């Protein structure tokens, strides 16, 4: 899984590089516009250590932000699954608020909370929150009638069992959105760092942009791609393990 994701990324990255170099030589562009392979390699050697640390920094914020997001989305999704007034309110609020571009709110958050770790965490969590919430809400609001009927009619239904049934029946959907939101969390953290932070790979990219250094940006993209591949592979593996565990041994049935 990891090997596959890694070489998939490497193929895409190499293709992108080849395209850029092709453009460079076709149009006769200088190293300033598109750096040559030697310059890219030199830049890589100069900054790979620093950028690797920056990327880990960003990834750690992204992962934590995603965890916060998952917990929040799960809680709100479970609360909002009912057709009560509160449940409907949660659904409507979720659909409407997700229309706001979070990146536009990011500068305000920076002003209020400063440019430390907490701000980046909040922005990362906000960016991957709504897709997670929508999927959780969708899953939790949709009864699995063929399974739930017995428990309802025999008076055995509890909210924990209802959540468990719906989560289990939609496990694949949930693990997919969690894996997908990893990319969102990473992208969100990078954008937050880009706007106004003083750490992380997004911050380094911003500096590279000031310096019009495409070489550094390519190195940064490489680090981001590799770390995301590893992280997503990890999430897929974890998701598959959860599924296997629930299917293999008899789990603790709440019914």
């Amino acid at each position, binding site marked *: 899984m990891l090997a596959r994701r890694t070489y998939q990324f490497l193929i895409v990255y190499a293709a992108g590089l080849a395209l850029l170099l092709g453009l460079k030589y076709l149009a006769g562009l200088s190293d300033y516009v598109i750096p040559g392979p030697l310059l890219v390699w030199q830049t890589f050697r100069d900054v790979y250590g620093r950028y690797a640390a920056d990327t880990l920094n960003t990834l750690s914020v992204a992962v934590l932000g995603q965890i916060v997001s998952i917990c929040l989305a799960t809680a709100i999704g479970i609360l909002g699954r009912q057709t009560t007034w509160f449940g409907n309110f949660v659904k409507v609020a979720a659909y409407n608020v997700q229309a706001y571009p979070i990146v536009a709110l990011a500068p305000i958050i920076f002003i209020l909370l400063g440019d430390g770790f907490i701000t980046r965490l909040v922005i990362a969590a906000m960016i991957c929150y709504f897709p997670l919430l929508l999927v959780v809400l969708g899953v939790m609001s949709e009864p699995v009638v063929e*399974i739930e009927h017995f428990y309802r009619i025999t008076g055995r239904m509890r909210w924990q069992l209802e959540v*468990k*049934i719906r989560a289990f029946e939609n496990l694949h959907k949930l693990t997919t959105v969690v894996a997908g939101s990893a990319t969102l969390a990473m992208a969100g953290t990078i954008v937050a760092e880009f706007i106004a932070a003083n750490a992380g790979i997004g911050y380094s990219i911003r500096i590279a942009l000031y310096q019009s250094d495409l070489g550094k940006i390519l190195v940064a993209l490489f680090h981001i791609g590799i770390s995301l591949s590893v992280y997503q592979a990890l999430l897929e593996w974890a998701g598959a393990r959860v599924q296997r565990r629930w*299917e293999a041994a008899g789990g603790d049935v709440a*019914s």
Partner: protein
Amino acid sequence: MQISCDDIALSLAGAERPVFTALSFTLKGPGFHALFGPSGVGKTTLARLLIGHVRPDAGRVSIDDGCLRRLYAYNLERLPGWSSVGRHLEKITPAQHRARCAELAAEFGIEPVLGQRFARLSLGQKNRVNLIRYLVQDFDLLIMDESLANVDERTREQIIVKIKALFPDRFFLYISHNVIEVARFCRQVLVLRGAHRRPQAVTVPGLDGRGGATVSPEMEKAMLAIMNAV
């Protein structure tokens, strides 16, 4: 034990025609009764009416005190997939019915698959497992909506005979398309007809298990009466 409907009218949302118009009948229990009728006539809707999931537009459903604990089982139900069938049955069987559960598992032929997940069972096995879990609950009335639809004929007969033997004091309403089966095994057959027919429901006596496997004249008469009533 008695269930009756008095002049029931019901239209479902989005339907062109009403399901019931002036539906009236009385079924006196206990016993193994049938609800019979062509596809789409409203058998499942009637079942939902009887367990209170649907309210009529007009008329009255009367369920006497002897039938208060009502259950409804249908053939498309599934068990949760996170534990084996046996473990699930353990969890949902009241303590006083554990022995009964084991007996039913043996009689219905699903003992060999108790260690498997529900999804891996055949359709017939699924039907049987689902039925068992209802039979081990405390109930007065059990409506079985095509609950044995995927079970082979011989096993179906065995199951019906077993149910009648083990639960003589309960009220069963067996929804089926099989006229031979309902004629042979059921005490009363409530034949449901289209909403334009008067009366919309007709009660025909069945053989209630008398007469064995052969098609006797009595059984032919019952079958004829059922088919004429449709």
